C-alpha cells in the first residue's frame, strides 16, 4: 500500500529528526536562611537525579538529559531556545509500570505466582486476612525460583505479606510470629538484619522487653561477608536500638536502686554496665545525620546523671547546629531545655529560642521567648518580643489561643505605658491589609464568643488598638455583649418572679 509506505517512511524521518526538547537550564535550588543546611549537598546531585529521572521517564528519547548536565555554562544558548512551556511531545509523567501485568516471556510458574500475588494483594487491600493467609500458603512455592534477584524479591514479599497477615490475623499467636520471623531470617541472608530489627520491634510492642534485647544482641553479633549500604545502615540502627534498650534498662535499674538506698554494689555495677553499653552505641548513631530524638534524649539524660554537663551540651549543640542534620525543631528544644535546666543565662536561652523562632515561628516555646524578651525590658527586646507575637498570631494554629491574645493585650498595655506605640505601628504596617480579614471579622467575633468570652475580650482590646474602635469585630462584640446582658437580665427577672 502506497499510503502506508509513505507514512512509515515519513515516520521514520521524524523519528530520526526527533528534536530533543530544548535543554533546560539546571536550576539552582533556592535556599532560605532556615533551610540552609538541607541544600548544601544538592547542587551537584541534582543533575544526577535528572539523569535517573530521564531513565525512568522516557526510554524513547535518549538525548536531552546529557544536555541538562553539560549545559550549565552556555546560558545564551539556552535563552535562545524555546522554553519548555509547550506541551511536550513525550509523556512527562511516568505512570508506574504495572508490575502485576502480564509480561511477554512468562512461564506458567511466573504466571501463577503473579496471579497469586495479585489475589493476596486484593485480599489485603480489602482486609480479608484469612483468605490472604490461604493464598499465601500457595505463594510459598515462589521460593523455588531459580534466578537470584527474583528469589530475593520473593523472600521480601513473603516476609512483608506474612508478617502483615500474622499481625492482623485473628488467630495468630506470638509463637507463630516468632517462628515465622525465625524462618524468614534464614531464608535469605540479606534480610537477616531487617527481619531481626522488625522482630525485636514486634517483641517490644507486645511487651517482651527481654526477648527483644536478646534478639538485638544476636543480630549485633551477626557477621556475613560484604555488606551492602542498606545492610550497614541496618546494622547501625540495630546498634542504636540496642543502646536505647540498654538505656531503658539503665533507667529501670536507676529507679530500683534509688528506691532502696542500701546502695547495692552489684546493682550499681549493673547500672554502669548498661550505661557503658548504651553510651557506646548511642554515640555512634548520633554522629550520623538523621533524626535521633529518643536517642539524644536518653544519652543526654545519662550524661546529666553522671554530671557530664559539658559532654551533654556538646552532643546537643552538635545535634542542633550540625549542618549535615535536618532542620529538626526538637534539637533546639532539647538544647533550650537543657540550658534552662542548667540555669544558664537568659541571653543564651534567648539565642537558642531565636534560632528556633526563625525555623518555626509558630512554635509553642515562642511564648517563653516572648516572656524572656519582655523581662530584659530594653526597647530593642520589646520590639523583638512584639515581632515574636505578631509572627505567632500570623499562624492560623494560634488564632484561637487565649494565652497568645492575652500576651498581646498585655504587650499593648506595656507599650502604651512606655509610650512605644510606634513599635506597634511598625509591626502593623505589613499586616494591616490582611489581619482584619484574618482575625477581626464579625464571623470571628461570634466564633470566639462561642469558644470563650475571655478570648473575645482580649481580641477586642487588640482590635480596637490596631484597627480602631469602629471595626466590625468591636461592633459585633458590643452586640454580643448586649445580647448576653439581656439574656442574663431575663434570667434574673424570671428567678425573681419565682
Amino acid at each position, binding site marked *: 500500500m502506497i499510503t502506508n509506505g509513505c507514512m512509515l517512511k515519513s515516520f521514520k524521518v521524524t523519528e530520526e529528526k526527533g528534536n530533543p526538547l530544548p535543554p533546560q537550564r539546571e536550576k539552582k535550588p533556592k535556599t532560605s536562611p532556615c533551610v540552609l543546611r538541607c541544600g548544601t549537598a544538592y547542587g551537584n546531585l541534582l543533575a544526577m537525579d535528572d539523569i535517573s529521572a530521564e531513565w525512568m521517564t522516557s526510554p524513547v528519547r535518549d538525548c536531552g538529559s546529557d544536555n541538562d548536565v553539560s549545559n550549565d555554562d552556555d546560558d545564551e544558548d539556552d535563552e535562545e531556545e524555546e522554553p519548555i512551556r509547550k506541551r511536550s511531545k513525550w509523556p512527562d509523567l511516568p505512570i508506574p509500570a504495572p508490575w502485576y501485568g502480564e509480561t511477554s516471556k512468562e512461564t506458567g510458574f511466573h504466571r501463577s505466582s503473579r496471579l497469586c500475588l495479585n489475589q493476596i494483594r486484593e485480599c489485603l487491600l480489602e482486609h*480479608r486476612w484469612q483468605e490472604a493467609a490461604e493464598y499465601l500458603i500457595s505463594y510459598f512455592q515462589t521460593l523455588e525460583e531459580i534466578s537470584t534477584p527474583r528469589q530475593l524479591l520473593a523472600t521480601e514479599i513473603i516476609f512483608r505479606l506474612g508478617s502483615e497477615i500474622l499481625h492482623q490475623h485473628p488467630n495468630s499467636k506470638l509463637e507463630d510470629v516468632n517462628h515465622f520471623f525465625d524462618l524468614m531470617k534464614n531464608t535469605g541472608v540479606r534480610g537477616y538484619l531487617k527481619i531481626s530489627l522488625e522482630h525485636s520491634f514486634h517483641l517490644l510492642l507486645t511487651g517482651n522487653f527481654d526477648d527483644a534485647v536478646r534478639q538485638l544482641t544476636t543480630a549485633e553479633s551477626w557477621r556475613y561477608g560484604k555488606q551492602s549500604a542498606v545492610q550497614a545502615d541496618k546494622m547501625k540502627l540495630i546498634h542504636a536500638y540496642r543502646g536505647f534498650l540498654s538505656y531503658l534498662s539503665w533507667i529501670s535499674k536507676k529507679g530500683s536502686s534509688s528506691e532502696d538506698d542500701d546502695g547495692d554494689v552489684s546493682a550499681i555495677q549493673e547500672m554502669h554496665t548498661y550505661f557503658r553499653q548504651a553510651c557506646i552505641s548511642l554515640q555512634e548513631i548520633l554522629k550520623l545525620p538523621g533524626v535521633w530524638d529518643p536517642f539524644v534524649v536518653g544519652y543526654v539524660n545519662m550524661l546529666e546523671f553522671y554530671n557530664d554537663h559539658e559532654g551533654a551540651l556538646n552532643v546537643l549543640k552538635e545535634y542542633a547546629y550540625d549542618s549535615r542534620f535536618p532542620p529538626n525543631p526538637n534539637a533546639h528544644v532539647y538544647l533550650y531545655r537543657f540550658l534552662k535546666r542548667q540555669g544558664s543565662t537568659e541571653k543564651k536561652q534567648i539565642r537558642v529560642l531565636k534560632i528556633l523562632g526563625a525555623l518555626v515561628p509558630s512554635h509553642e516555646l515562642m511564648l517563653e521567648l516572648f516572656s524572656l524578651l519582655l523581662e530584659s525590658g530594653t526597647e530593642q527586646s520589646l520590639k523583638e518580643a512584639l515581632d515574636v507575637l505578631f509572627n505567632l498570631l500570623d499562624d492560623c494554629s494560634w488564632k484561637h489561643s487565649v494565652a497568645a491574645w492575652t500576651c498581646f493585650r498585655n504587650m499593648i498595655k506595656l507599650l502604651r505605658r512606655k509610650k512605644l506605640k510606634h513599635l506597634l505601628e511598625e509591626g502593623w504596617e505589613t499586616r494591616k491589609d490582611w489581619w482584619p480579614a484574618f482575625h477581626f471579622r464579625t464571623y470571628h467575633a461570634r466564633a470566639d464568643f462561642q469558644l470563650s468570652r475571655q478570648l473575645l475580650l482580649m481580641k477586642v482590646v487588640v482590635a480596637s488598638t490596631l484597627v480602631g474602635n469602629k471595626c466590625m469585630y468591636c461592633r459585633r462584640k458590643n452586640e454580643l455583649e448586649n445580647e448576653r446582658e439581656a439574656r442574663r437580665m431575663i434570667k434574673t427577672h424570671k428567678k425573681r418572679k419565682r
Partner: protein
Amino acid sequence: MDSKFPDQLFPVFYYTGPPKKKADCPVHAWGLHGHVYGNDSGSAEVADWSFLAQRKVNGPTWAPVESIVAPLLPPKSVNKWSSRHLPSAMDFPKHMQNFYLYKSEDAFSTMNHLLEDHFDFGSGELKECMKKTTVSMKNMERFMSSAKFIKCPLKPFEKRASLYNNLLGDVIHDIPPGLLGELLYEELTLQREEKQFNEVATGGALGFFLISTSNTSQEGCLVYPRKAALNSLNFHKVVVEFQENIPRPKFMNKPINYGVNGTIRQVSVGPMEESVYVGVRTDYNCGVWVATSAQKPQPLDVVNTQERATCLTVSPHMPGELLVASESGVAYLWTVGRSLQKFREEEGNLYFNAKSPWRWCDFSAHPRVMLYADRTGLELSDIRSKETCSHTVFRIGATSGCKSGERVILSRYLCNVNTHHHLVTTQHSAYIMDERFPCLPMIKWDHMMASPPMFAQAVGTASQHQNTVILGSQSSQELTLLQYSGGNAVAAQVLGAPQKLSCPMKSLADLPVQIPHRQKNVQERLTVPAAGIASIYYDKEESLCVLQLSEVGDIFYQTLRPASQDSLQAAHKEMLNEDSVTEQSGSSPQESQESVNNPRTNIVSQSKCKIVSQSDCPPETSDARIHGINEPCVNMILNPLTEQEDVSLSKDIPRPAKVSKATLLKWKSWLNVLRNGQRSTPRYSQLHWTLKTKDHFTFDGKPRDILGKDQITSLRNNMREVMEKKSVLTCGATSLSPPEVLPTPHPVDTQSWGDDLSQRLSVSWEGGWKDWWEEKLGLNREKRIEELRRKRRRLKRTRGPRVALSGSFTTSASYQSDLDGWSSAVSDFGGQDPDLDSSTFSGYLSTQEDSAEPERTGRVLQHEPKGSKLSSEEKSNVTLSRNKAKMPKDPSQEGNPKAPKQLKQDYMSALFSSQEEVVDAGTEGTDFFFPMSLSSQVSSISNSQRKPSLGPFSQSSQSSKQGKKRARMGF
C-alpha cells in the same frame, strides 16, 4: 492543639541526593512497624513502658455499610463515552486510510478543483481544444470502485496504482502525507497519554460544603458538573438521613445550575463561615461563586489565563482569596474583585527538569505564605517580600525515601486536620509533610494504587484522634483509605493498612445480571474514569460518605462506618442466625470459629448473606416494577443460587457481599434509565439490506398461548423447582391438561399409487430403478417378446392347434400380473382411466420410432387434440383452485384474510416458476410437444406477473409442493 510540635520524632536516617530506590517490591505497604520509641512514662518498671510504633498495625477501621457503591443521580444520556481502549500511536496509517477514504473532500479538494477540467468523466461532449489535455476517467473509476474494499483496496491494481502514485503522489494531497502521519502519530500518543493520565483533572471536580447539622440529619450542598461536556455547574442540596440506621445522602429540591464556558476540571470549596466561596476551574477560565446557608449561590468573578490553568484553590483563611496557577509557570493570588497578583514565576521545574508544565499551589498555615509545587517538589514562598524567598517543603529525592521516577501528583493543605500538615501524593506513595519540619515526611504510606492518585480528601475525626485520608485515582477509579493519628503532641503514626473501597467498576459484579449487550454497555459506562471525589462526614452518628464523580457526570456514593470488633461480631451472629444453612464441606469447625471472630473475612457466610438479600426481594415483583417488563432470564440466573450451590460459589465470590434492597432498587432504576436513554443507534440500524416480512407474518396481537396469567406463574414456579432438582419438566408435574395423543399414521401402501412416478420411486427405493426404466423404455422388449414367444410356443405345444388367436389376447389380458407394465400398457391403452399418463406414453412412442402397429398410433393421435383443446388459462385455474383448497391447512397461513390479492400473486408465481423449472428439465432429454406449448404460454404470463423477488417463505412453500406438482405436470 495544632500549635504543638511532637516532643520526639521517630528515628530516621537523613539521606540526601537523588532517589536511590527502584520501584520493585510491590508490597511496601505492609509488614513493617517502621521505627519504635519508648514513651518515658517515668515509671521504673520496663513492663510499664508503652512503645509507639511508626505504624500501628491494628488501627481502627472503617467498614463499608454495603459492598457496592450506589448511584446518586439518574444517569444522563451521553451520546458517546470513550471506552477504556487505549489508542496506540502506531495505528496512524489506519487513521490516515480512514481519512482518505471517508473524508476525501478534505484530503484532496484543492487538487480536485485544479485538476477538474483535465479529467473526463464521460459526461457531455469534449471540446476539441480540451481533448489533448483531458484524461478519461473510465479506468480511474473502475480503479476507484474497487477501493471500497477496506482490506487492501489497491492490491488488484498494484501496478497501475503505483503508476498513478508516481504521477500524482506528490501533488494530489492537500496535506502532505508525511506531515499528516507525523501529526497523527503525535496526536495518538497524546491521546493515549491522556487516557492513562489526564493531569488537567487534578484536584477533582466535585465539592461539598456543609450548611447545617442536626441530631438526625445533616444538610449540605454538593457542587458538581453536569451535561455531556461537564459544562454546567450544579449546586444541589443534599441531606444525609438515617434510614434503618444507614446514612444515605439524598438530593433535595432542584439543582441551581450555571452554564460554564468549557469543561469543568476542578471545583475547590472553601470553609463554610458566613459564606462559602466555590472556585471553578476550566481549561482557560477560572470563576468564583459565593454561597451562604440562606441565599442561593451567586457568581462573583471570572479570570482568564493565557496558558492552560492547572490549579485553583480557595483560601481556608481569608474570604475571597484564591490561588491560580497556569502552565506558564506563574502563580497568582486572586482576591475577588481585584486583579491578579503574581507571587511566583518559575520558568522550569523546581529541582530538576521533569519536563512538565504542570504547576500547583496551595495555602499554608500562614495566610501570606503560599505553597508552590510542580512535579519535582513543593516550596513555601512568602508573598510579602518582593524577592522570592522560599523554603523547601518536599522534594523528590532520597530524603523522603522516594523511588526513582517518582513525581508529585497532587498536594493538598490539610487545614481541617492539622494546620501544619500537607498531603503529597506520588505514583507510589502518599506523604504527610509538616511545614515546621520540612524535607522529612512525618508519615509515608505506600498507597498500592494502580494509577496515580489525583484526588484526595481528608477528614479529621475528633472523637478518636484519627485522621482519615481518602485518595482517588482517575483512570482506575480506585479509592484508597489511609489513616493516621498524632502530629501534635505525639509523633504522627500510621494506623492500620491501606484499605481499598469499592468502585463503580466492581459494583457490577454484585448487580443482577443483564442481557449481554446491555451488560457490556453498562460495564463501559461504569468503567469511565473518575473525575473527582468528595466526602461527607457526619460526626453525630459517626459515618463517612464517599462520593465519586465520573467523567460522564455520574455520581456514586458509598457509606462507611467505624468497624468496632463488637458490632461486627454482632452483625455477623445475626447473619448466622438468619441462615439456617449449616456449614458445609470445606469449612471445618475451626474455621467457623474464626469466622465468628472476624466476620469480615468469612466468605462462606457472606455469600450466603448475599443470597438471602437477593431472595428477600422477589425478582418477579421488583423486576416488573422497575423494568416494566418481565425479564425471565434475570430471574432464571438469580434463582438457582440456592443452598446446594452456595458452598461452591463461596469460593468464587471473594468480596463481602452485602447489598440492601434499597440499593438494588436504585441500581435497577439507574440501569433502566441508562437503557432507555440510549435506545437509538442510527449508525448501525441500516447496515444491511432488509426485506420487510411484515405482511407475511401478520400477528393480530392476541397471545399465542391460551394460558391464563395464573397458569403461567404456576408454570414458572414448576420450572424453577425442576431446575433446582436438575430434572426434566414433564407434563405431569404441571397443572396443565395432558396434550392430545395423535394417532400414529397408517403404514404406507405403495400399491395404491397408480401413477408412474410413485411407482418408479417405490421401486427405486428397493433398488430396482434400472430395471424399471429398462422395462419402461422397452430396452428389454426384444427379450420379452422372445420370452413371450417361447411361452406361447410352449403353450402351443401343450395345447395344440385348437386354440384361437383371439383367445390368446384375452388370456394375455388376464395374465396382467405376469406381464407387468408392458402388457398392461398395451392392453389398457384405449381405456378411459383419467390418471393415465399420456405424455409419458406419447413420449415413449415418439422415441420408439416404431411404426409397426399403425392402429395404435392412430389412437394416440386421436387422444392428443383432446388435451390441446383445453386452454392453458383453464388449466392454470384448475391448478390454482386445487392449491387454494389446500392452502388453509398450512398453519402459518391461518387467519390471513387481509391480503388475498397479494397471496394470489405469490401463489401464482410460486406455481409457475416451479412448473417452468420442471418443464425445462424435461425438455432437455426428450421431445415433448404437448407440454412445451403449455409451458411457453405459462412462462409468458408468469413473467409479467412475477414479483422481482421472493421471500423465504414463498420459496419454501414452492419446494414443499414440488413433489406433487411434478406428478401433475403432464396434465
